[in-house]
């Protein structure tokens, strides 16, 4: 007898499971979480804090807030940031002052740990939300974050 009851018990547990899958099968539209990427590219928005890449925002006068203090370079665990700096004449005081020549950022090395952004005293760098970072040539992942001919915003001190 237990032979048959075993069979029935087995079928019953299978049907219980099938009920769950059946429910989703019939309501497949409601519970779907799959994203139709890349078709939804136009409306796909990442969260504000999403860590895609490190960027250096420039304002409309092509000015940034980086003083060249190199704190981010020291904080970075793996040498992603290289700051090539120079001394230039400060127009306001007429004294020589440290300024960045190139802020080199190797996206291919970056672990997105956020320590550089955390440590920056002038908030010169922040997170960009771009996540489509694949390229055909990996040299394209080495970027200079300060734009050509950009200057430090007047009044920014560290």
């Amino acid at each position, binding site marked *: 007898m237990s032979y048959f009851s075993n069979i029935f018990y087995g079928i019953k547990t299978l049907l219980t499971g099938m009920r*769950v*899958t059946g429910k989703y099968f019939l309501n497949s539209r409601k519970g779907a979480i799959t994203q139709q990427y890349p078709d939804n590219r136009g409306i796909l928005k990442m*969260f504000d*804090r999403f860590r895609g890449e490190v960027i250096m925002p420039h304002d409309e006068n092509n000015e940034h807030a980086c003083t060249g203090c190199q704190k981010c370079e020291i904080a970075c665990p793996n040498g992603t940031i290289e700051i090539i700096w120079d001394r230039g004449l400060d127009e306001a005081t007429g004294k020589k002052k440290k300024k960045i020549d190139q802020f080199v950022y190797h996206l291919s090395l970056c*672990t997105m740990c*956020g320590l550089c952004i955390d440590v920056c005293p002038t908030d010169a760098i922040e997170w960009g939300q771009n996540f489509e970072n694949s390229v055909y040539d990996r040299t394209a992942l080495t970027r200079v974050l300060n734009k050509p001919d950009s200057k430090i915003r007047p009044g920014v001190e560290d």
Partner: protein
Amino acid sequence: MQETTTINNNFKSEEYFINMGPQHPATHGVLRLLLTIDGEIIKKVEPDLGYIHRSIEKMCERDSYQQIVHLTDRMDYLSSHINNEAVCLTVENALQLEIPERVKVVRTIIGELTRIASHCLWWGVMGMDVGALTTYFYGFRDREMINDIFEETCGARLTMNYNVPGGLMWDIHPNFVNRVKAFVKHFKTKIPEYDRLLTGNVIFQKRTKGVGVLSKEDAISFGASGPVGRGSGYSCDVRKYHPYSALDKVTFKESLQTAGDTFARYQVRIQEMWQSLSIVEQLIDNIPEGEHRVKTNAVIKLPKGEFYQKVETARGELGVYVISTGTKNPYRLKFRSPGFSNLSLLNHIAVGGKIGDLVATMATLDLVIPDIDR
């Protein structure tokens, strides 16, 4: 098993060995198992490690204490928040920093959510390992909601690096509380579904009950921890015995099973999801106001001495042992990772079983290979 071991005299039986892995879906990563087998019966399992060794412990000796935190993300990546917390707690205790209540509560909530997310993934993969593909999608569906919560608040889905020595990198996102509440509500209806779909399934039960039995004595002597130890009746929850962060303020039951087989370990994890949900529920409504971070020196120097902190990750007990000589880097930093100890008992419980049982057993050990290799 008995009937298959009796050797038919007409055929010569011979032991031979095969490689399982390093690229095998059931090892969930690059783990190579050298199996000595006789027919389908396992005679010996020898794990071969090191395929994903990145010398994290050595890198820690080079890095500052802030930088160490992000490396622990890459160990047990499914419990990354809890790993971060372990390092931060070690540093904070060594410096005797007073941590705001808000930080403690948020850390605990995110830690428990991490545990649920990890168990969701484990549940999905466990089903897949024993042949039920559907569970994989359901597990990932629920984990997705937690990942969104993390992404909004911490900025990343897996390697969150949200803890810093002294607190949290940012305050929680304004949507955090609502999202967590929505998740708790959603997930409460999903765990019973997990039970209906897999736990009660007769095929699943036949494949897991009595398979890979680990006795309590062996669990203790092999240093098993987490759900593996608790599935054998070994009460070892660090959250209960050495509560950290806000875990001393919540009430929860340690999930224990005594059978010690694969099914018992499965049940422990399902119960843990309920317990973690209840912890989140107890805390989410009254996150205290206050600072999300206390100031530390830019260069953190631990006092001379040795420091140890253990936490309960989704896989078991993670210990961080720091020897400091008073400089800005640790002299030596050792991680006691749960996966490594849990792997060591695989040979013990898999011998005598079949290859298919080995896959089921490994699924409930819930190995994360980067945690083993570091």
